[in-house]
């Protein structure tokens, strides 16, 4: 579907530059570990549950291990060394003993270290095997129930704060036509350095991501899939300080898509850049293995920066996200690269500009299921105008072959969606897809017209920006406020205390397994 006459040399150059900009970050990520990566290993090995205060056992164990031997060697060696020394019969008991202070950890050496490595590897492999089983289960269910009939897949958000309210809402949304249900997280969760435990009924503007909530919602949507004769996908967020653990839980509970952007946490949550890139790489390796489609967050840049002036920052971020994703083992079909309909509607030709940007993304990433995000910034509370804007948003989605369409609500910026808002929004989508879903067959922009020129211009600006980033270093570019106008220096931000440079003895069985099977 090559509709824009993009210069293949420029496109290749853009990718090469993205690789050049990203490679030092990957090297940096490989040299460091984080508390959350190490806790994810414990979760893979089967450690779950929380103490009476609600603090997960993985955190209790991790905190003690870190206090005894530090973070820089990873937690696998000291933990499985303690098990081999007979300190406890399993991880659960070990965590309890660690919490009560009745076990001391050490860094094993020589044969002890070798034995600990072997035992840790076996335990992590069992977890990865469970993730593999979940992936096969998904493939089976898709075969049985089928994929949605149309593209884009229709993505709807549920956000009550109470998992037991979310479930009927999600099932109703699926019945109304949603192909993908996203459960928005409670706003505070990204900054928690632990994953809450159990089914939760209290959340602000969203529901906590917990293993039990994942399990409950997936089971409910399996029911809906059977009822509706199409596989309904479930989405959550692998972001914030516990990204690696949440990615692991998503793999274990067969979530289908995860929001997972390489820079979002840095820019919009002020999480330390190194922490983010290390956590990112591990979580993407897990997503790759679990067959999870990631959704990146480029739409967010346009909520702070101007959607026309900053259009190229979206393209640059997409290229970087692509590089980081592929380096971590994700395939094209797993890249839900984000972009959004956020141009000021009062601007002349705003719709043509939107079309140009959406077509550029489509053509740069032909095999990726792009995620098309609705207007939010220029939704004013005038719900009638908002409904029209959402219609035009849907039309761009239909005309440019987007893979995932997040349904826009006319009450954006007014209330959390009411049942009638969702119903009207889905009517809007159905009308546009029904009336114009095949318009892309007829639609060819003039080779040197406004749309084609604009797309070329944005691509050109992207290459220029990538050149600057390569010269300056991506971490410096982030520090300078290149993306979303947010300035984030590498030696600041949340979660920095949970980062360590790996020692020569460092061992992580999960990363070893995930990297060797590729």
């Amino acid at each position, binding site marked *: 579907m090559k509709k824009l006459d993009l210069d293949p040399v420029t496109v290749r150059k853009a990718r090469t530059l993205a690789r050049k900009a990203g490679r030092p970050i990957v090297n940096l990520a490989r040299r460091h570990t984080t508390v959350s990566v190490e806790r994810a290993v414990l979760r893979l090995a089967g450690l779950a549950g929380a103490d009476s205060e609600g603090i997960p056992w993985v955190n209790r164990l991790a905190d003690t291990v870190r206090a005894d031997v530090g973070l820089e060697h990873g937690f696998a060696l000291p933990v499985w060394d303690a098990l081999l020394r007979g300190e406890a019969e399993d991880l659960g008991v070990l965590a309890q003993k660690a919490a009560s202070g009745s076990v001391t950890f050490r860094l094993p050496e020589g044969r002890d270290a070798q034995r600990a490595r072997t035992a840790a590897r076996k335990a992590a492999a069992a977890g990865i095997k469970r993730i593999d089983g979940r992936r096969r289960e998904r493939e089976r269910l898709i075969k049985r129930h089928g994929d949605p009939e149309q593209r884009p897949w229709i993505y709807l958000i549920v956000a009550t*704060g109470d998992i037991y309210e979310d479930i009927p809402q999600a099932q*109703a949304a699926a*019945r*109304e036509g949603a192909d993908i249900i996203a459960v928005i997280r*409670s*706003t*505070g969760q*990204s*900054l928690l350095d632990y994953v809450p435990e159990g089914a939760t009924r209290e959340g*602000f*503007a969203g529901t906590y991501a917990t293993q039990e909530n994942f399990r409950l919602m997936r089971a409910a949507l399996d029911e809906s899939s059977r009822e509706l004769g199409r596989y309904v996908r479930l989405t959550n967020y692998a972001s914030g300080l516990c990204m690696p653990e949440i990615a692991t839980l998503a793999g274990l509970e067969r979530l289908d898509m995860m929001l997972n952007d390489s820079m979002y946490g840095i820019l*919009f*949550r*002020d999480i330390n850049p190194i922490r983010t890139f290390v956590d990112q790489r591990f979580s993407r390796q897990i997503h790759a293995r679990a067959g999870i489609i990631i959704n990146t967050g480029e739409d967010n840049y346009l*909520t*702070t*920066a*101007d959607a026309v002036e900053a259009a190229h920052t979206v393209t640059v971020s997409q290229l970087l996200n692509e590089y980081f994703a592929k380096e971590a083992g994700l395939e094209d079909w797993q890249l839900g690269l984000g972009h959004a309909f956020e141009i000021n509607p009062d601007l002349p030709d705003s719709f043509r500009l939107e079309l140009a940007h959406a077509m550029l993304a489509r053509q740069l990433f032909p095999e990726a299921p792009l995620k098309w995000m609705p207007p939010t*910034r220029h939704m004013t*509370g005038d719900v009638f105008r908002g409904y029209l804007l959402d219609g035009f948003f849907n039309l761009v989605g239909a005309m440019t072959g987007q893979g995932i369409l997040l349904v826009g609500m006319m009450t954006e*910026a007014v209330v*959390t969606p*009411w*049942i*009638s808002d969702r*119903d*009207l929004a889905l009517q809007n989508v159905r009308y546009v897809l029904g009336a114009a879903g095949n318009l892309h067959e007829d639609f060819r922009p003039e080779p040197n017209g406004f749309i084609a020129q604009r797309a070329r211009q944005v691509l050109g600006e992207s290459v220029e920006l990538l050149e600057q980033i390569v010269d300056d270093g991506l971490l410096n570019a982030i520090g300078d406020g290149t993306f979303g*106008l*947010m300035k984030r220096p590498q030696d600041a931000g949340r979660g920095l205390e949970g980062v360590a440079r790996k020692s020569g003895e460092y061992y992580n069985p999960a990363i070893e397994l995930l990297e060797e099977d590729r």
Partner: protein
Amino acid sequence: MSIIRPYGDTTGDGMVQMSFTLPIPHDKRAEGAAVQLANKMGMDPALVVHAKPMGPDFTFFVVYGPVNHLVDTSKVEVVERDYPLLSPKEANLAIRKHLRRRLTVVGACIGTDAHTVGIDAIMNIKGFAGEKGLEYYRELKVVNLGAQVAVPELVRRAKAEKADAILVSQVVTQREAHVLNTKEMSAAFREAYAEDHRPVLVAGGPRFTEQMAGELGVDRVFGRGTTPGEVASYLVNALVTRRQPVRRSA
């Protein structure tokens, strides 16, 4: 004329449209129920122009009709702007002339709120509604702490920066989060500072009304549609023009 009625296409016709959902299946009884609700809201006769089932258990209605209520505009209470609107140039000049140093403004989205769109619209140079944000004002030193800032951290930064004014933005309203967060903020500042040295506290967000300042414990509340120029003008008036920072009785 202070007594008015809504206007459809003729003066005094009182015409109003509304839409709502009732938690019952769509049938004649449901439409009757919609009419009954509209009647009780003062709409008579009520015309159900659209009724649509939404799943098996809900029905959505659009209803038109005249309302029999009258509105007396002389009895409407609003907080009138009690400070002059200044251009950025005038604001800068006032600060330079009277304060003789830059005026420091610290802004944040506090608590769990991650929606920086409000604070960014006011503070970022980009601005809002065609007006440049506070960063554009040469005589303002603007520190935007971004999203999800804990209240103690905000107080600490305010002290470190010697803030003259604090702007907090709250968008998320679920379970009254915006009210609770803002009250926590104002209480913390009142505790951390002697009253006559406390920075001016300003809260903003689409679900706040200006009358809420007292309840929230802040000096001023800005609601939906506020522009950076209004905020800057208010700050200059409160902190500079009136010389002694005037603490509104709130």
